[in-house]
């Protein structure tokens, strides 16, 4: 977020295009597989598979927030959260050779620290809730990477050569931004596939909380961006991250412009853009607006299939039918959606 980084930005963007292309190579190679992926998934998945898929994502989020606030992983907290289960249990990879204490964010703003603390608690509760609901079929925490992942994403998104989400309030919020909107789309995409009403109710309830978190993070980023010496930098990052997420999730489709409320040219994601205008009941867009909401032209939140989420969290775009590894999950996800 430093001025130096801002100055380097253009240069980085140019360089990162190359990296983006290399990332897209797998996308191109995988085009043929796209149909196969969806078919394979649709055939056999049960509610417990979707819940375990969600549990992998909650392990990721909960560790991120607890490291940021306490410098601890969820299993090393004074009141530890369970991480055992089926599949291969893994460690959390962080900076300093897994020096967890070094991940404690030096928060300068009391309210942002409070938001982080609340979110750490709530994501931890989601882990516990899903583990309780799944009981003995709950998957173990897979290996989670919160170090190399952010560096790679920052390059691919065209933000910076490296990125430490634990370095400052602003970096923490950008790190949180990476996850929350994705959580919303993941639960949204899974909700319709759940067959047991109670599971649907729970998934919809967690979806709402992820959306609360997303709204909280996006509003906070905008507040911080506005107060910064370089307004537009942080919101610019959100646009780049959204663009990357969208391209990973939609490797083979043309971008669709969301025109009614935010004209960012991505298929299913939009960052914060304070230059937006809306028409309301008028005949032309004359009211200054923004895009705190990440949603489509009907102001309905986006939805993503498990394959699209896998593409985002592992970087395999499009995702393979199984065995996707990379980015946040270097050893893959545990469970049948992987």
């Amino acid at each position, binding site marked *: 977020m430093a001025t130096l980084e801002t100055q380097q930005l253009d240069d980085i963007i140019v360089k990162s295009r190359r990296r983006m292309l290399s990332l897209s190579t797998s996308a191109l190679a995988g085009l043929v597989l796209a149909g196969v992926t969806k078919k394979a998934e649709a055939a056999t998945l049960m509610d417990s598979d979707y819940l375990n898929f969600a549990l992998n994502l909650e392990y990721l989020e909960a560790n991120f927030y607890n490291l940021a606030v306490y410098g601890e992983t969820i299993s090393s907290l004074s009141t530890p959260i369970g991480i055992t289960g089926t599949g291969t249990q893994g460690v959390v990879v962080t900076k300093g050779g897994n020096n967890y204490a070094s991940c404690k964010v030096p928060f300068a703003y*009391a*309210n942002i620290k*409070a*938001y982080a*603390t*609340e979110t750490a608690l*709530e994501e931890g*509760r*989601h882990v*516990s*809730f899903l583990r*309780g*609901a799944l*009981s003995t079929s709950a998957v173990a925490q897979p290996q989670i990477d919160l170090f190399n992942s952010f560096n790679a994403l920052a390059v691919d998104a065209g933000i910076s050569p490296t990125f430490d989400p634990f370095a400052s309030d602003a970096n923490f919020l950008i790190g949180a931004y990476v996850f929350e909107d994705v959580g919303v789309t993941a639960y*949204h995409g899974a*909700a*319709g596939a759940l067959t*047991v*009403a*109670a*599971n*649907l*109710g*729970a998934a*919809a*309830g*967690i*979806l*709402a*909380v992820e*959306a*609360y*978190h*997303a*709204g*909280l993070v*996006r*509003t*906070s980023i905008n*507040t911080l961006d506005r107060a910064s010496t370089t307004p537009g930098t942080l919101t610019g990052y959100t646009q780049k991250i959204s663009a990357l997420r969208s391209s990973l999730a939609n490797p083979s489709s043309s971008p669709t412009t969301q025109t*009614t*409320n935010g004209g960012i040219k991505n298929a299913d994601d939009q960052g914060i853009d*304070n230059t*937006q205008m809306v028409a*309301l*009941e*008028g005949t032309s867009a004359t*009211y*200054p*607006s*923004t895009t*705190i*909401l*990440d*949603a489509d032209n*009907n*102001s*309905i*939140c986006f*939805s993503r299939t498990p394959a699209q989420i896998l593409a985002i969290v592992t970087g395999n775009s499009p995702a393979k039918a199984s065995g996707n590894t990379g980015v946040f999950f270097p050893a893959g996800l545990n469970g049948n959606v992987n």
Partner: protein
Amino acid sequence: MEKKLNDLIDKALSRRKFMAGAGTAAAATLIIGCNNSSPAPTTTPAPTTTPTPTTTPTPTAAPLTDADYLTFALNLEYLEAEFYLYATTGSGLSSADAGSGAGTTIVPSTGTKITFADSYLQQYADEIAQDELNHVRFLRSALSAAGATVQPRPAIDLTFFAGLGTAAGISGTFNPFTDENAFLTGAFVFEDVGVTAYLGAAPLITNKASYLGPAAGILGTEAYHAAEIRTLIAGNAAASGATAAQTAALANANLIAALRGKISAATDTMISGETMLSTSQIVNCDSTNAIAFARVPNQVLHIVYGGTAGAGVAKGGFFPAGLNGNIKTTTT
């Protein structure tokens, strides 16, 4: 786990069969209860106060359809859209968006268009106004496409904020159109209720392929809005140099949250209260599982009608002539 879940749902569904109409809400309580009051679905206890068949006012009424739930949602979106449009433009829905036969909207005589001192708040308000307008248009279009009657906007009373404020214990006459801080509190009245209403209705939808996705997506949007409003209110009040109006916006929001919780708790066992807003608690969710609260239509009706207790309440509060459609009257 699945057997217990299925037993639970079977129980709920069998109750639903002999409690048509009103009973749907009770059945939903059973199903949704899992989300709020238990650590996991496996340990969900049955709610202790399920309405008995004798209290059902209309035992012969047809079961509620997906169109009824969408229409119920449309009524709430009309209310939200009117509020935000009046605040941002000084006018409400166009006649095309309000529909043929729309009721009138009563607004404070002192005017509604807010002069935002903070350009960011102006942008937030404009964005949400467009979103709620989009929801009105989407639901009208979805109902029309389904061949259902598209109910017009019912009569809406945006001066009821004063009555709501009095009931909540807000000093003076609460009018959200006076300035941007009062506006935030006014927005707070609606957004969390929208979240709970969609969450309560989502599992009742039977045509999942057509309607569940949009309902869940609108639920997400309402939660984004709710978080945005809550973050702004709590953040403003916590900032050094917070004005009296900013401090009051938070205090008033929490008075309203307490009132909403009280009204809901009096009508059902689903929510005993809401989480009080602060910078340490932005999300409105239960403190065990961090799952958002759900309200069945009966509870939402009680809130928007202004809190009159008991069954048979069919109008009041923000809706002086009641909602349009089949979900209109409180059942308990």
